[in-house]
């Protein structure tokens, strides 16, 4: 067994804190790394140690392998957890860690490389007999190849970047006229985003469900799955809401897809926590989409229904320990749902909204978990992802979960920047969503239901007017800020005598 005593988390934001929390529970010391913009970020304040790794743009810090390994050396960390994003699926980084004698908490560099290239991943899956979406055989070099494939498979088709992720270099093509311009745009976007302009085409599954299976595998040949996550609610090709169980799922389909996911992971000799993403069409046919060789943003919903701490399992596997439970011992209890809270303006094309957080009230109580990282007074940097928090809710049924999510969103108040909270609330009230009748086109299809609507009566406006009036009057007096409640213009009194009608 490789003992792990000190973990450097090569990430920032909520996931850095998420990982450090489990480390703390396991008695493992934590090392934060931070860019210039993140000196006062919460992960720096939470960790036992914190080391500076460069300027704010991520290529100079969170993507800079030398700087991170330097911090690992200085701090004496014996393992690195990459989180998600940044270097988490970078095979070179995993190799460099190994060369330094530092345990990389994730699968082998070979597996990362194989599954990171979407084309080689498709090939590996096809060899293992896993169904994949019909697509081009490897990278499209000549534009004519793309046209041939599209004519054969039938429009619409999707062009994707081989090195892709996060919707970059991805274009939906409806007809022949769109094909060549889309290829060129995708190629330049892919080059800019990944430094690699290799593209491939796939048949586009119309209104598919995006369903993924959580995998855990140890170094002793045990591979198991922790059931599915339904991730079809997306905007700009990014997930917004995830839930488990999927409203689409049947016990038979779950068993079949779970078995396929395990086979897929075994086919590449996977170790650690990973995710097999599938597209599922209206006839419940499913196709391998890609494998994420890291922790997913939405991993908490799986943790909630299975009771398994996935970060702890990652660390135990990285220590070389065998999994302590079997497939038969795993089961889902109740229903869990995650809402991603983005700093963005849903009423203005989801434009990111950087700025300073004024006040936060987080929901708590039965069935509520929040994984966030911003605090009052924190200035959200412009350099990184706009996701500031995840709200994870559990209920004994899907219905109870949605009711509880609505309550939690009602309680959730973040002021100072625009957020997706109210938009998420509107989703919870859309009949298609509550009926579990949705696919990846949900947000597009439900524009009317998702429009901002005045839910508060006239009195609400009047009360806001009264508050603004009083604040304006009081500001004329310019008093110091305080969090204590006080009656109007009476602050110099030590004890306030409260009057009642």
């Amino acid at each position, binding site marked *: 067994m490789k003992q792990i005593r000190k973990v450097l988390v090569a990430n920032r934001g909520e996931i850095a804190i998420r990982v450090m929390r489990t480390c703390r529970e396991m008695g493992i010391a934590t090392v934060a790394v931070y860019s210039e913009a993140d000196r006062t970020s919460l992960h720096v304040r939470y960790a036992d140690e914190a080391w500076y790794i460069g300027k704010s743009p991520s290529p100079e810090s969170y993507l800079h392998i030398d700087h991170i390994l330097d911090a690992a050396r200085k701090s004496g960390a014996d393992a690195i957890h990459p989180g998600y994003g940044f270097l988490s699926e970078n095979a070179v980084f995993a190799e460099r860690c190994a060369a330094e004698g530092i345990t990389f908490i994730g699968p082998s560099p070979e597996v990362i490389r194989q599954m990171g290239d979407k084309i080689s991943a498709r090939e590996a899956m096809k060899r293992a007999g896993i169904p994949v979406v019909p697509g081009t055989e490897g990278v499209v070099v000549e534009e004519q190849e793309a046209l041939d494939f599209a004519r054969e498979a039938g429009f619409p088709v999707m062009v994707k970047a081989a090195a892709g992720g996060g919707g970059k270099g991805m274009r939906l093509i409806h007809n022949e006229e769109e094909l060549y311009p889309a290829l060129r745009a995708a190629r330049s976007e892919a080059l800019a985003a990944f430094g690699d302009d290799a593209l491939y085409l796939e048949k586009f599954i119309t209104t598919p469900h995006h369903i993924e299976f959580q995998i855990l595998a140890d170094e002793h040949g045990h591979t198991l799955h922790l059931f599915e996550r339904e991730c079809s609610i997306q905007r700009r090709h990014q997930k917004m809401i995830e839930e488990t169980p999927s409203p689409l799922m049947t016990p038979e389909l779950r068993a079949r897809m779970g078995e396929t996911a395990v086979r897929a992971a075994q086919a590449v000799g996977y170790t650690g926590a990973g995710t097999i993403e599938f597209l599922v069409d209206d006839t419940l046919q499913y196709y391998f989409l890609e494998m994420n060789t890291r922790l997913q943003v939405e991993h908490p919903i799986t943790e909630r229904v299975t009771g398994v701490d996935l970060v702890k399992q990652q660390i135990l596997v990285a220590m070389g320990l065998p999994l302590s439970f079997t497939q038969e011992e795993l089961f889902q209890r109740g229903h869990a749902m995650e809402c991603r809270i983005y700093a963005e303006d849903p009423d203005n094309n989801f434009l*990111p909204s950087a700025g300073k957080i004024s006040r936060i009230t987080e929901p708590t109580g039965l069935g509520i978990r929040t994984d966030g990282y911003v605090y009052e007074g924190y200035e959200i940097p412009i*350099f990184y992802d706009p996701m500031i928090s995840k709200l994870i809710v559990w209920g004994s049924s899907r219905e109870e979960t949605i009711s509880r999510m609505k309550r939690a969103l009602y309680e959730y108040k973040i002021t100072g920047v625009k957020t997706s909270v109210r938009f998420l609330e509107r989703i919870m009230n859309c009949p298609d969503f509550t009926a579990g009748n949705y696919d990846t086109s949900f947000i597009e299809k439900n524009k009317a239901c998702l429009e901002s609507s005045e839910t*508060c009566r006239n009195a609400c406006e009047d009360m806001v007017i009264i508050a603004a009036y009083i604040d304006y009057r009081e500001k004329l007096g310019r008093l110091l800020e305080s969090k204590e409640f006080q009656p109007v213009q009476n602050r110099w009194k030590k004890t306030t005598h409260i009057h009642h009608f």
Partner: protein
Amino acid sequence: MSVEIRIKNRLARVELLERNDNLLKIKVDEMIYHVDLMHTTGGTFSILEGGRSWNIELIPKQEPRKYTAYTYYETYDVEVIDAEARYLLNRGGGGPATGEKSIRSPMPGKVVKILVREGDAVTHGQTAIILSAMKMESEYKAPFDGKVHKVHVGEGDIVEGNQPLIEFEA
């Protein structure tokens, strides 16, 4: 002291009629309310009115007398229009009118690309500048047919919210 307050498209006249510590009798347009109002100096308000309980957060904007107001349900832009504001409005200054001839950054971000130079002729809707913030790039376009009057920023610059980027002239 009566002032006007703008909320959405409404302009409401407010007047405090009576006050006894936390108990206020206050007139909003034609409605008279008896409210029990407590607040922190930080802008958190607890208002009880006819049994109804309201929680309101007021976050001041950079411009004086302007707020973003949050109830549990809604977010409002609110502006207090007092004598000074009315004077400025009448003079035609201070308003957002000047913004119409220029592109301003809607939020803090980084200038990725500038597609026009000073003196260039532009057409309405032509992309003039690309900003990036939090992994998302956004394009900003010329507001009318005309000429680029001034470019205030360079590629790679970090900009604040509401900073003028490019000015145009007809």
